[in-house]
């Protein structure tokens, strides 16, 4: 099997992108103070989180597979994460 990159794997999925509402919000101050950014990056199978050269964490919410691991590992207050609005986000055909 050709080992696909994460973006290539995600491209196989069907997403209904919500262009009006981002369901993930990072508090950069708390991320910096706690170092929790590394865990956000590491636990996300969809590579939603990226640590930028300036130490902030950028978010690609369109790729989110909605598992909730980031919310579980995040330091208190570092992350606001809820599900996308009804009908939006990943739509599994296999599951």
């Amino acid at each position, binding site marked *: *099997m*050709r*080992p*696909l990159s*994460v973006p*290539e*794997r*995600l491209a*196989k*999925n069907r997403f*209904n992108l919500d262009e009006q509402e981002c369901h993930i919000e990072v508090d950069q101050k708390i991320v910096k103070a706690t170092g929790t950014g*590394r*865990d956000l*990056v*590491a*636990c*996300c*199978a*969809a*590579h939603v989180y990226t640590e930028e050269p300036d130490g902030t964490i950028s978010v690609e919410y369109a790729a989110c*597979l*909605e*598992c*909730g*691991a980031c*919310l*579980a*590992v995040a330091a208190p207050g570092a992350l606001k994460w*809820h*599900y*996308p*609005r*009804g*009908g939006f*986000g*990943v*739509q*599994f*055909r*296999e*599951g």
Partner: protein
Amino acid sequence: MPETAEPDFEVIVVGAGIAGCVTAYQLARQGRSVALIERGESPGSKNLSGGVLYARGIQNVLPGFLDEAPLERRITRNCVTFLNAESSVGIDYKDTRLADPVNAVTVLRAKLDAWLAQKCEEAGVFIMPSVRVDRVLTEDGATGKRVVGVQAGADEMRARVVVAADGVNSFIAREVGLRAKEPLNHLATSAKCVVSLPRETIEARFNLVGDEGAAIAVVGDCTEGVGGGGFVYTNIDSISVGVVLRLDDLTAKKKGVTEIFDHFLAHRFIAPYLEGGEVVEYGCHLVAEGGLNMIGEIAMDGMVVVGDAAGLTLNTGLTLRGMDLAVASAVAAAEGILSALERNDTSRSGLAGYRERFFASYAGKDMKTYAKAPAFLEIDRLYTHYGELFANVLYGAFNLDTEPRRHLLSVARKALMQSPVKMRQLISDGIAGARAL
């Protein structure tokens, strides 16, 4: 307790997974008015599991399940393996008795749950797809906060009972205080690919006939020593392959999910299963791993919690269960709710029948039987040194290097001496395992 405003439905179920669908189905069949709210575009579209469903329980609910439901394969071959970088040691258990009567099946949830929701609709459940519940509606009652409905966007819907079937992250159970933020050792994250392959290839590769299926579970090198494991499950014309990684260990060992998953997919003993296949979907899912300790209160005034939302999963070392527990909790919850509705008392004490019925069921008893399993499975050596140790014992036995043979016990003792595992650890882990599993 008097119930004031007239409800829109007798019961609102939040989440059309297995637990939600079965609860709704059982209630509707008894003539109760039920709404089933699902945030996905259609039922099943947000749902993902590894893929093995132990199917006896759901057959009691839906007698046509095996013939009508969109199932994949009937598992007749179970492999549980310590997978090292260059060796593997495990059991390979194949038994045609597991196909008749059918014990476990592989499923793809987007397909299965769509079918379950259709059964619900036929039974009279009002299904509301593409609706995200934002919060629960509560009122102050005589015995504290009472759930009276849900809010989705600008819409409010009221019910005598709300069923939280919204999965492992259950925002609504957290909102009302039935669930707290879980410690990380109670949670694992799982990444999975569905890889398509011709069915003949799958049958030849896994030594299967017809709709027989194989379930392979591995621990060790596949997760680079992180607590958890990997799986390879056969579907009809695809393979579900994934890793499950305990979040406390993943973060402590500073490893990334996707790096470990890539390592697993490329492993010399895993890659051949997938050769020639094509990834058709990529998903991930949070898995409850806390066992009995994770189950807290599952009922309050006006609300019950079922399935993953209640923390109902079970890893016994050999079997990985969640979906059958979802069914069992749903059946117990529906009975508890029916009894509460009949007595016109949907308070916490009125709904207490749910908990009693669940813990009287085989599923609830199993949760208690395996209460010590999660702690046992946190022993780091299971994912690091034991696989190598077992392989070294067998290497000593099979590798006839023209040295005079020694008895197996002596070979084992030498392998143990060379391993980081100490004799007392082996003994205490053995005893703990025997007690836990």
